[in-house]
Structures are given as C-alpha cells and as structure tokens.
C-alpha cells in the first residue's frame, strides 16, 4: 500500500517536473530596461499596419474607451478575462517593458514579470510572428499616447484562475514555435500562410476547441463554434462550408477587403474582423492570404445527403407563410436575393451549414455587413427577436433550409429557445 502511495507521489512529481519544464526550461531572465529613444517613423507605420493585421485593437479597447487601453471583457467557458492595457503608461500599461519582454509575450505568452498569460491572448498564433515584426508592433504601441488605466482582475473560476492550471494547459496545448517557410511553395503562399496562421490568428475561431479550450492542431482551420458567442466559424477547407478553393482569387480578396463579394457576404464576428482588420491590408497581402486559403486541401463534409431528415409538412408550410410575410420582399420569392444588397438563400452554403447557430443569430438579431471603404453603405437585416416566437423562427429557418433545392436538416424550437436564452447582453 505504502509503495503505491510512493509511486503515485513519484509520478505526480515527474508530471509536475514535466509541466515546469515545458513552461520554463531554458527561458533566460530578461533584464532589459524600457527603451528611452523614440521609435523611428517607419517602424511606427509598419507596426500600425501589423497591428491592423492582428486586429489587436478590437480586444484591447473597451467599448467607448481609449484605444489600446484594455479593459474589454472577453467571456470564456472558464470565466471572464479582461484585455490588458497596451499603451505605454509606465505604471498600468507596457511603458516599463523592453522589446525583449514584448517579444517574449508574443512568442511565449508570458508577461513582463514572467507570469503565464491566458491563451485568450492568441499567443498560440503570435508565436509565429517574426522578431522584426514583433519589434515593429512594440514600437508602434510605445508611440501611442499613454493612458493610465489599471488592468482589471480576471474573473475566472477555480482552478482556472491559478498559474498551475495554466502551466498544465500550456504543457498540453502550447509549444513556442516560429514560422517556417515552406520552400516548396511560392513566396506569396508563404506570406499568406504567415499572415493567416500568425498575426491574423484566423484559427483562433476557425478551429474547434475541446472542453479545456485547447486545440489539437491550431492551424487546421476546420471550423469551430466560437466559445460563448453562439457563432460558428465555418471550416475554411470544407467545400460544403466556407472553403474558397473554387472561388476566383479576386472574389476572396474582395470579401476580405470589403466584406462582400459575388460569392458571399460576411456577418457577425467575421464582419468585425473585416471592419477593423482586413479592409486595411494591402492588396498584395490580401492576395497572399487568398492564395494560401485557396490551397487548403479540401475536407469533405461528414453528412450523407441520404440521411438528412426533412421538416414535417406542418412546419414547412408554416415556415413558407412566415417567409412570404417577413422575408420574401428582400430575399425574393425563390430565395434569389438581390445582387449587391441581399444574399440569395437558395444554394447558399451559409443556409445549409450543418451547424445552425449563425442562422438563428441572424434571424433573431439581424445585422449589417461591415461598412467598409470598399462597401461603405451596406443593406441591413432587421432583428426578429421581438417579432417571431421560437417556434416561428425554427419554422422559417427549417423552410429556407429545405426550399428551392436546399437540402439541410430542420431546426427545432428547442435549439432556438436555448440560443435565445443564452444570449448575453
């Protein structure tokens, strides 16, 4: 009995040692002081551009607050994490950081004092950012006006609020890495891969997470439910979801630059990404990203069309009536849409996705595609949360998923009810 206990202690000690090793092995202490000379104008401009590419501002700015001063709450299944102050305030921001501290934060997910950072900050992706780009970002951030705003304490449940739990998570799901060029590909493809997998951190949403918030392969881009938001980021490799392998390159570029294209329109969290980030990227960078995305090997969807259940005739008819009453004026009697204004619903992958969260979102809450420089005055979809009951929402969605040649499973009233009640305002 005693031997078993000792064995257990020994195993635990070895595991703890491994966790420690994965997190701290070979990491030298950084003793650099904060730079005293102002950054060059070129570095600041380059860093500003890279910050757009990484969409850093969106999370690091509170609603209505000073840019980059942090404070925005980010809900996770483990509690709320508050984004940090990135302005160069010496006391509350990163004014006392050195370039080496900043590089380490991006590459290893550790704060100035060595504390492990929560992976809400996508260092699983920024670990691939080059040292030179990290330095440019740092120079841009320290060119901002300092804002004195203390960081808010995260509100996480035990044990997720401990550094030990974070160390275990990192041992399981994070390895510091660096971007490796693929010599068999063109420089353009490599640039695209670098942007998508690094700063762009597309996989933070477009990859499924397990119960611990970890991902098996951070770069698979096979689609995932965005935690706490009730939005599904579709697979960028599945032709039945959001793969762009068969799109003309220019359409992919146009989607990222303006939020709309002949083949599709962005809504929800992706609309925010286009609004705050990709619309500002240079055309050649967008082309590079499109080249990379178009090269993703296709992954077949896993639903067999023969097994798709159909909505009952009662629900279908009810949905058809509601469609006629509320939707047909804009989306057309045959679900054909209006070019440049309202997306078609017939033959639209966004309608027939196996995951229906996005549809429920859009019908309940409406929305606008992003108002971008290339598409400044988009047409809006009204919210129906106060107009339609859960059963009505389910019926109309079931109808559009089964009409005009669309063949997708119906949506239940329960699904709508669950999503409506889980909405956080």
């Amino acid at each position, binding site marked *: 009995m005693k031997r078993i206990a000792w064995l257990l202690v020994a195993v635990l000690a070895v595991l703890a040692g491994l966790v420690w090793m994965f997190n701290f092995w070979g990491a030298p202490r950084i003793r650099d002081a904060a730079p005293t000379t102002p950054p060059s104008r070129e570095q600041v401009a380059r860093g500003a551009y890279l910050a757009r590419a990484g969409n850093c501002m969106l999370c690091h700015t*509170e*609603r*209505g607050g000073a840019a980059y001063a942090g404070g925005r709450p980010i809900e996770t299944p483990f509690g709320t994490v508050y984004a940090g102050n990135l302005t160069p305030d010496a006391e509350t921001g990163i004014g006392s950081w050195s370039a080496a501290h900043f590089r380490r934060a991006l590459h290893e997910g550790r704060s100035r004092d060595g504390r492990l950072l929560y992976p809400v900050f996508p260092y699983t992706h920024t670990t691939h950012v080059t040292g030179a780009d990290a330095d440019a970002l740092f120079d841009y951030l320290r060119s901002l006006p300092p804002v004195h705003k203390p960081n808010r304490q995260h509100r996480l449940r035990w044990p997720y609020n401990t550094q030990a739990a974070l160390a275990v998570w990192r041992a399981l799901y994070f390895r510091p890495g660096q971007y490796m060029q693929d010599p068999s590909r063109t420089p353009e493809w490599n640039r695209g891969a670098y942007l998508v997998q690094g700063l762009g951190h597309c996989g933070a949403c477009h990859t499924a997470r397990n119960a611990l918030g970890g991902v098996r392969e951070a770069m698979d881009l096979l689609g995932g439910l965005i935690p706490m938001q009730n939005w599904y980021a579709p697979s960028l490799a599945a032709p039945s979801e959001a793969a762009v392998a068969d799109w003309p390159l220019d359409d992919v570029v146009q989607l990222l630059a303006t*939020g709309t294209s002949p083949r599709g329109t962005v*809504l929800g969290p992706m*609309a*925010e990404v286009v*609004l705050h980030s990709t619309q*500002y990227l240079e055309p050649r960078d967008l082309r590079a990203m499109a080249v990379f995305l178009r090269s993703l090997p296709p992954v077949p969807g896993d639903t067999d069309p023969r097994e798709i259940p159909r909505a009952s005739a009662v629900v279908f008819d009810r949905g058809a009536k509601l469609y006629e009453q509320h939707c*047909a*004026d*804009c989306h057309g009697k045959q679900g054909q849409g*209006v070019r440049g*204004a*309202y997306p078609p619903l017939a033959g639209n992958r966004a309608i027939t996705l196996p995951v229906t969260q996005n549809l429920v979102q859009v019908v309940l*809450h*409406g*929305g*606008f*595609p*992003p*108002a*971008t420089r290339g598409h*400044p*005055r*988009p*047409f*809006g*979809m*009204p*919210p129906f*949360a*106060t*107009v339609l009951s859960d059963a009505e929402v389910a019926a109309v969605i079931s109808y559009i998923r089964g009409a005009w040649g669309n063949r997708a499973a119906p949506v239940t009233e329960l699904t709508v009810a669950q999503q409506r009640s889980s*909405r956080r*305002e």
Partner: protein
Amino acid sequence: MRGLLSFFFILLLLSGSIATAAPAAFQDTMAQRTLACTSCHGKEGRAGPDGYYPRIAGKPAGYLYNQLLHFREGRRHYGLMANLLETLSDEYLYDIALHFAQLDLPYPAPQLATAPPEVLQRGRELVARGDPERRVPACASCHGKALTGVTPNVPGLLGLPRDYLLAQLGAWRTGQRRALAPDCMAEIARRLAPDDLSAVTAFLAAEPLPAHAKPVAPAPPPPVPRRRGQKAQPPAAPEPPPMRCGAALPPVAGAVR
C-alpha cells in the same frame, strides 16, 4: 372649400399608405438600407413587446448621430441596437442620421392628460422656467421655445409617450444612459425632484405639437459691443450661464476609426 381640400388631402394620404402596403420593390435608397431600423421604430415610433421604440424621423441629425455612437460604444444600452451598429462606420452612422433627420412625417395626437391639473401646472412651470432653487434650467432654454428641438444636437420633447420620457430621465439619473462629457442631461435629471420627474413628463406627453414641428436653428449669440468708449448695455437679468453639453462632431471624410 376648405372641407373639400382637406378631404382630398386625406384621400391623398390614404392612397399613399395603400401604395406602401403593397410589397415594396427593391430600391437602391437609404430607406431600403435602413429597413433594419424602421422594422422596430416604425415611421413615427412604435410600442414593442419589450418597450417603446421612439420616433426617429425628423429628429436633429447631430442628435441621432450621437445616439447611434452612444449605443455602439456602450453609453446607452439596448442589445439589439448595439448588435446592429457593431459593424458600421462613423461615416455610415452619420448618413443614417441624416436620412432620418430629413424625413418629414406627421406626428400622432398627444396622449390624453391623466395627471391632476396642479401636476400639469407644475410641469408647465418646469418646462418654461425651470427650478432656480434646484438649479434646474427650463427645458425650453435648450430644447427650443416650442420644445421641438434645436439643430444640430438637441432633440424635441413632444410627441413621445410618458413612459418613454420617464424611462429616459430615470436612466440618466442612474447612469444607465450617458452622453459624452460634460453630460448636461444627467446632471439635470439628478437635480430634479422625484415628483418633478413625474410632473414634467406628464406635461410633455400631453402637450400637442405646434404646426411647425421641426427643430429650429440655434439662437445667434448676443451681439458684442464693438466700439470703444461706448458703454455696454447692462445685462437685462442675471441669467445663469447655459449648461455645457458634450457631443461628437460629424465624422470627417477619410478619417479612420
């Protein structure tokens, strides 16, 4: 003759409403773009299952623009609004504000006054003269003599139901509704006595709109005596300095948010 004219006018109105009831063909207009707004607010404001959606047609553009910014940036709170505005640029929000400001639609009749006459009288007094003791300025001093608003940033106060007016004053007192600093309305709402909240909203909701219900242009500043040697006129009455109110300016073309 006048009866006949008004008969034709009503006929014209009716035919207009019949025309809009038919399925609307797609038009590349702001009205088409903003169906997401009018589906709740209606043409002239509308009561919804979860509260009152106030009229937006004909309110001053600067006021509407600021409210859109407040909702997007968390100074006013309504989930559906914030969600709709999340992906819109400042420039587009200003376009939307201009569109609704330019609409000229008739106002519904005011609500029947149910409050006792002395309460309504107190309301009338607050609107016209304020409450000097509590340092509450008269509503009319900022919202226009006719209470129909002042361009570009001050909304009219008539044609709104009492529940809505009360909810807004309450939200200002608790900090639920905010404007950019200096937040004059929050200050005024906090200075008002609880009974006066009730009195002023009872009066405003029951007050009919004047024939000309549009917001007026701001009064020009008093002329400054220019010539030296000439004695300046003594001020007529020692009025308290007007309150300062914060507001965002229209977006500059080409600026990046």
